[in-house]
């Protein structure tokens, strides 16, 4: 099983990753996707639904769906915030998420101003231990 965990990202127990982009949003928009472990467990994705731009999300809210032939999983927003961008390319090429989960397979960007702090999320090493625990 594929299990790449980049060290510069933050993680959740529901297998989302969070990247601080220092981008256009005031507090730095957060980029969010699902981990290599998650895409590998799901198998070939056939459909990905991303949240609409402008949608306000609360922390832990189900906001995207990733679907394989035999399973469908919700993706939860790691923090509260407003969606400022989504990855439209996934509509026609859901395989991007299988091929490049931390790059071309990103799901959406969130302006999380006032929506909590990424420091509450897991570090790469925490997530790796979490995966190891789950495997047992």
């Amino acid at each position: 099983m594929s299990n790449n965990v980049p060290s510069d990202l933050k993680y959740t127990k529901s297998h989302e990753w969070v990247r601080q982009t220092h981008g256009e949003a005031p507090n730095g928009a957060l980029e969010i996707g699902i981990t290599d472990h998650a895409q590998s467990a799901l198998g070939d994705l056939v459909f990905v639904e991303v949240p609409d731009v402008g949608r306000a999300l609360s922390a832990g809210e189900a906001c995207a769906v990733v679907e394989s032939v035999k399973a469908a999983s919700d993706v939860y927003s790691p923090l509260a915030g407003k969606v400022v961008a989504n990855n439209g390319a996934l509509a026609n090429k859901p395989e991007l998420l299988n091929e490049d989960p931390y790059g071309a397979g990103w799901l959406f960007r969130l302006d999380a101003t006032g929506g909590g702090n990424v420091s509450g999320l897991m570090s790469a090493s925490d997530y790796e231990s979490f995966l190891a625990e789950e495997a047992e």
Partner: protein
Amino acid sequence: MQLNSREPVIFELSKPGRGAVTQFPPPVAGTAQVPAHLRRQAPPALPEVSELQAVRHFTRLSQMNFSIDTHFYPLGSCTMKYNPKACNSLAMLPEFLGRHPLGPEPQGFLACMYELQEMLQEITGMPAVSLTPMAGAQGEFAGVAMIRAYHRARNDTARTEIIVPQAAHGTNPATATMCGFVVKEIPCDANGDVDIEALKAAVSPATAGIMLTNPSTLGVFERKIVQIARIVHDAGGLLYYDGANLNAILGKVRPGDMGFDVIHMNLHKTFSTPHGGGGPGSGAVGVSARLKPFLPLPIVGKDGARYRWLTERDLPQSIGRLSGFMGNAGVNLRAYIYMRLLGREGMVRVAEFAALNANYLMKRLQALGFEAAYPKRRASHEFIITLKQEQKAYHVSAMDVAKRLLDFGFHAPTTYFPLLVPECLLIEPTETEAKEDLDRFCDALASIREEMRNDPEKLTSAPHTMPVRRLDDVRAAKQLDLIWKGNAA
């Protein structure tokens, strides 16, 4: 069976101007016409073929199916037993087939339905039955909607949660959601019983009810049922019985006696109406006295010697109507005929021989080296084999074994359900299979077990003898081809 020969899509046989003209009505003189702006411009692209072409095409398609009439079909949780031919031919008597549902109340047909209601009441231990729901899932819907209506009628509006064991069929949580409830899932213990401590922790003043299947989807009888009923009732909730596995206990124990308040039955399972390639079913519901006012309409009543439909006037608190007329009447008629053929003695033997066949098959497969998921338990009318060891050792999955069974001339058991047991096969032989057929099935699985060791590729690339090889489901879902657009498409 039609092997390795593709049957063209019907549109490929079509030629403009061809037709089964003896089926067309003769033209009627007159001037009736659709106004131009509401008229269809081009005729619909339906096939144009001769009657023989149609007959041959659909007959050949039928030959590409496994069915009970042609194959052992041990699909767990589906009760694929023999569908007696008499049930079909008698339900298709011209008077039954030709009757319009809104004509005067038909005393012959209603007599059958009334007696069917009475027999189902007796078998389930429930004082009232409605035959209206058109499938198991709609019966579930009716049951949970009645639970909601009951609490509302008492102004007990805080009850917003339905408890569902993790082993439950996916329809249970889906139904609870459709009825506007929040689903609370609870685990099962290592022996397949509901985790009582988890149940105690889950119930609260928000508990509307619990949905249970007994015997459960794990193929074992829920032994703590009386205790479960007490816990839920004490919390003010109601008990819903999913009748998926009623075949296992017919005449042995009645859901009403176990403490259930509402039950749906799958007449297409327990009472052997045809599965028809995926329907029609019938999902009659039975209820305790306190839920009777909420039953879905219509129901058959009797005033003196005359049968009639009960309506909103009789049951003003009913959850309403779930179908355009009166449910799957013709399916209910088949169930009635089946029950009269079986009668008192036959009904009890259903559960007895379903259990005998399941327990025999489980022991034989264990002796061949297969691992039962609950080896310390009696099988109900079905049981689970888990192939997790085989998967580790030989890299073959439950799906591979299922596909390979097709090559041996057996329909596969249910795979990957229940979700709790890894690499599982849920096997339900039913009471109508002979010992020789069970033995042949065991022989096939013994051969497949040999192949796992010596030639696992035989499994992973199976089936080899069906009209098609394994299908590309990922392509099916990604490059959606859902209607015929010609061969170029």
